[in-house]
Structures are given as structure tokens and as C-alpha cells.
């Protein structure tokens, strides 16, 4: 038996869903310029998953995405984060050295010292790590919600 909210709530959730996703990805991508980052943005996107569960139902969410997708996403985020950190060893520097900063390549724009409007193409490996951590936190928090909900449902039955 599907426990869905009313049509009004579901329509509002549909509208909010896009906004939450855009804001979450914005917080992740601008982690090196504005307050926020991978952890915060991932948590914002995970609330979109919770919103779908509240407005629709657990079964509807599992029809859209599987738990395995979140497990793979969480693990891939952590592996990607460690991988980006370890690639620095290949460049002859230490782990977590920022080998892309001020290099002129990807995210390698030179920043003027002091207050500046901020350029997205800066930060070196930091935006990449923010994306990796954002993927991990998104998958992890969504998994926590799904696991706990499945436990509650089993008790009620």
C-alpha cells in the first residue's frame, strides 16, 4: 500500500526538488569561493532525496533509484577523493599537495591577492575534491535515510 501525500504537496515537492538540486550543486561547485563546500552541498542534495520520500513514498523512490546506486556513489566519492590526493605523489610532491593551483590548466587560474570578485576556474584540486566529497556525502546521507526508513517500516508491519 502506497502512502502518498496529496496532489498539492507532491506538486510543491516537484517544484522544490529542482531548486534544492540547483542550490546543492551550486554550494558544491563554489566551495572554494563562497561559504560551503562538499559536505554542506552534499547534505543539501540529500535533503532532496528525503523530500521525495516525504512527498511520495519509499516505494516510489526505490522505483526511481536503487540503494546500490547510492552505495556505489558513496564509495566512488571516497575513492575519487583519495585518488586525487594520491595523484600528487606522481607529480613528485607530497600527498594533498595542490598540483593544479596556479598551473594555468584545469582550475588553475592565478588569483590576485586581496579582495576580488572570484573566478570559478581557480582553486586547483580543491573543486575536484569538493565534487568528490559532495558525491560521497550525498550518497551516504541518502543511504542513512533509506536504511533507517526500511527499519521503521519493518517494525510497523
Amino acid at each position, binding site marked *: 500500500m502506497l502512502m502518498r501525500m496529496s496532489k498539492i504537496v507532491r506538486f510543491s515537492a516537484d517544484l522544490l526538488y529542482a531548486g534544492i538540486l540547483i542550490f546543492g550543486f551550486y554550494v558544491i561547485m563554489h*566551495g*572554494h*569561493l*563562497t*561559504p560551503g*563546500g562538499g*559536505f554542506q552541498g552534499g547534505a543539501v542534495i540529500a535533503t532532496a532525496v528525503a523530500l521525495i520520500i516525504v512527498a511520495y513514498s519509499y516505494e516510489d523512490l*526505490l522505483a526511481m533509484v*536503487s*540503494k*546500490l546506486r547510492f*552505495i556505489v556513489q*558513496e*564509495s566512488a*566519492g*571516497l575513492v575519487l*577523493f*583519495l585518488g586525487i*590526493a594520491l595523484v600528487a605523489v606522481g607529480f613528485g610532491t607530497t*600527498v*594533498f599537495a*595542490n598540483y593544479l*593551483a*596556479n598551473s594555468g590548466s584545469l*582550475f*588553475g*587560474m*592565478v*588569483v590576485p*591577492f*586581496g579582495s*576580488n570578485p*572570484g573566478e570559478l576556474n*581557480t*582553486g*586547483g*584540486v*580543491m573543486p575536484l*575534491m*569538493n565534487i568528490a*566529497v559532495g558525491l*560521497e*556525502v550525498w550518497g*551516504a546521507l541518502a*543511504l*542513512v535515510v533509506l*536504511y*533507517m526508513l*526500511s*527499519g521503521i517500516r*519493518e*517494525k510497523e508491519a
Partner: protein
Amino acid sequence: MKRELSVAIILILGAFMMLIPLGISFGVPGHSAMDDYFIAHGQEQTAANNIVTAVLFDYRGFDTIGESTVLFAAVIGVGLMFRKLMRGDADENE
């Protein structure tokens, strides 16, 4: 009697807690060498405007590995905790 005793204990503990912040001087860190270094060099070394992110993902990146691993372990813990309750689910994945 028991009620008065609890109120007295709460008051004494509360007064003790209120006294602790009086002994700490906020905004005047004793050792600010690292803070000054991050503020002076963070922007040119990491090419990021956000010094907090620069410390989190560059200078103290190893600490962030720990944070991510804690989150990973928390998810594994939650998954193990609700594993028994989920037995018999059609979409068992873990």
C-alpha cells in the same frame, strides 16, 4: 527535600559552567602563528578565495580523509544495525 537537593545541584553546576567562560579570553588566541600564515599566504598558494576551504582541503586535507571515513563508517554502522530488520526485503542489495 529531594527536590531542593536537585535544584541546589543544578544551581551549583550552572554557576560552575557560567564561571568557565569568564576565565577564557575570546578573540585573543595565544598562538596565532599558523592563522597569520594561512591568512597571508593561503590565497596565493592555493588560488582559492575561501580560506576555510583552503585549510580543509589543502593544508589539512589529511583531516578531511578522516571526516569522510567517519561518515563512511557511520553508514556501514547504520546498515549493519538495520540489516536484521530488512531481512526478506525484495530489493536486498548489501
